[in-house]
């Protein structure tokens, strides 16, 4: 069974806040749920599937279903970090194709900014029962220095430079200036990125995404319902997933999980990189974007640095405009999880709702 055209994205909402000390976490989930339903032209009673991940308070979906007053016949709380919501879109399409639900609601929210969280630079404490914990925690891995090791190896293998990585931030900043809600709206230069303080070598402060409060929601529904609503229909063509790991110590940073996940998604959708006029890439760090560009086949392995340079990712300038809302690098990274907002901007592009300067 394929999910190709089995379901559509009928509603989206991105919370305008980037700093919400005056709102509770559950409240943010409710506000984005309401926003996405209004966008779709559906009501709360239409929701019969609910999807959330580790940012939602409580046990799996249970507490949020209670708080939101939902009565779903299908739930899924798959949590794989920031990309959870992409899997939710795929899983919702699968559930709809299998007749398990008709209107699926996906929510994300978080408040790391008002909580003062050192998202990328403080080692995270995990339970001792997590099997890798005792073999990693003594060495103080953080989000930043783990991605930094990927960048360091890429530079070693392919001669990629900090200046090339910086172009990714520069492109995001060119888009963010058109987004009134973006946290960082100033256009930055390559020089400003490489001269910003080193966080974890070779990554600088401006190679990192923002830390923001906020959230977003998505409504996935069956095509006949989507066609009865007022918004342009956005079809789901394909998806792939692949949790990469340390492979018993055969650690290989030359590829990411998206290499095989992408292969499956391209195959299911029946499209190829050359067909793409826009791309949403997860952008926790500049290197994250570069690795996806290579592993999804937008360029040859190792050529990502050359591909992203000289404005190739800037709308109206280059061949592959990306994250035209400013992305996580400049606009929003709610709950430290960037997957959901990437879907939102892709939907805006397909609907023709993205900023006119970035379409």
């Amino acid at each position, binding site marked *: 069974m394929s999910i190709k055209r089995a379901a559509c994205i009928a509603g989206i909402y991105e919370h305008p806040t980037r700093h919400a000390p005056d709102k509770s976490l559950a409240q943010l989930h409710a506000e984005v749920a309401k926003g996405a339903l209004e966008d779709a032209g559906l009501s709360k009673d239409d929701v019969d599937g609910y999807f959330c991940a580790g940012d939602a308070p409580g046990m799996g979906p249970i507490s949020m279903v209670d708080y939101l007053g939902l009565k779903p016949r299908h739930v899924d709380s798959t949590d794989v970090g920031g990309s959870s919501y992409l899997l939710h879109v795929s899983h919702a399409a699968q559930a709809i194709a299998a007749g398990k639900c008709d209107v699926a609601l996906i929510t994300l929210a978080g408040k790391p900014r008002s909580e003062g969280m050192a998202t990328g630079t403080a080692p995270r404490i995990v339970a001792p029962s997590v099997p890798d914990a005792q073999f990693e925690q003594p060495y103080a891995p953080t989000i930043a*220095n783990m991605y930094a090791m990927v960048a360091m190896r890429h530079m070693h293998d392919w001669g990629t430079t900090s200046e090339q990585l910086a172009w990714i931030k520069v492109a995001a900043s060119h888009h963010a200036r058109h987004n009134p809600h973006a946290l960082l709206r100033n256009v930055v230069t390559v020089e400003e990125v490489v001269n910003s303080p*080193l966080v974890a070598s070779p990554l600088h402060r401006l190679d990192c995404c923002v830390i923001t409060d906020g959230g977003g929601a998505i409504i996935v529904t069956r095509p006949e319902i989507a066609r009865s609503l007022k918004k342009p229909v956005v079809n789901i063509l394909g998806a792939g997933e692949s949790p990469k790991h340390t492979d018993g110590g055969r650690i290989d940073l030359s590829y990411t999980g998206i290499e095989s996940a992408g292969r499956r998604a391209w195959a299911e959708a029946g499209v190829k990189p050359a067909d793409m006029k826009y791309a949403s890439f997860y952008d926790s760090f500049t290197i994250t974007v570069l690795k996806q560009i290579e592993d999804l086949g937008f360029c040859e392995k190792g050529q990502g640095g050359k591909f992203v340079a000289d404005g190739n990712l800037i709308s109206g300038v280059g061949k592959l405009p990306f994250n035209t809302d400013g992305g996580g690098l400049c606009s929003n990274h709610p709950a430290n999880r960037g997957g959901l907002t990437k879907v939102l901007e892709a939907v805006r592009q397909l609907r023709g709702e993205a900023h006119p300067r970035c379409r």
Partner: protein
Amino acid sequence: MMATKRNILAPVANVETQAYWDAADAGRLLVKKCLACGEPHFYPRALCPFCFGETEWQETNGEGEIYSFSVMRRAEAPYAIAFVKLDAGPTMMSNIVDCDFDRIAIGQRVKVVFQPSNNGHKVPMFTPV
């Protein structure tokens, strides 16, 4: 030389891994090897992650080379994290210590040293040969 003075979180061993940490306290670095397929792996498991065969502890020469690294500058005391490819086969996460952080390089040969964690138990780290 840059002093490495930071709070090293003590590993919390369990029945599956106690022998690894006992060996570290005694100044030895162990890996696990599969009795069925013969493959070494890291981090150590009771059942092989490649074939689910039974495994046994294996001594290493404590040496390897740096596969990748990063110097964490935004920290109270800067430190170097790395993946070290052991001569024994697997690659493990560790820290590079007792050296000039600006001279760490991918491919550099390193050897194990044992540093005390915040409860006194020793943790394997690496320093340039």
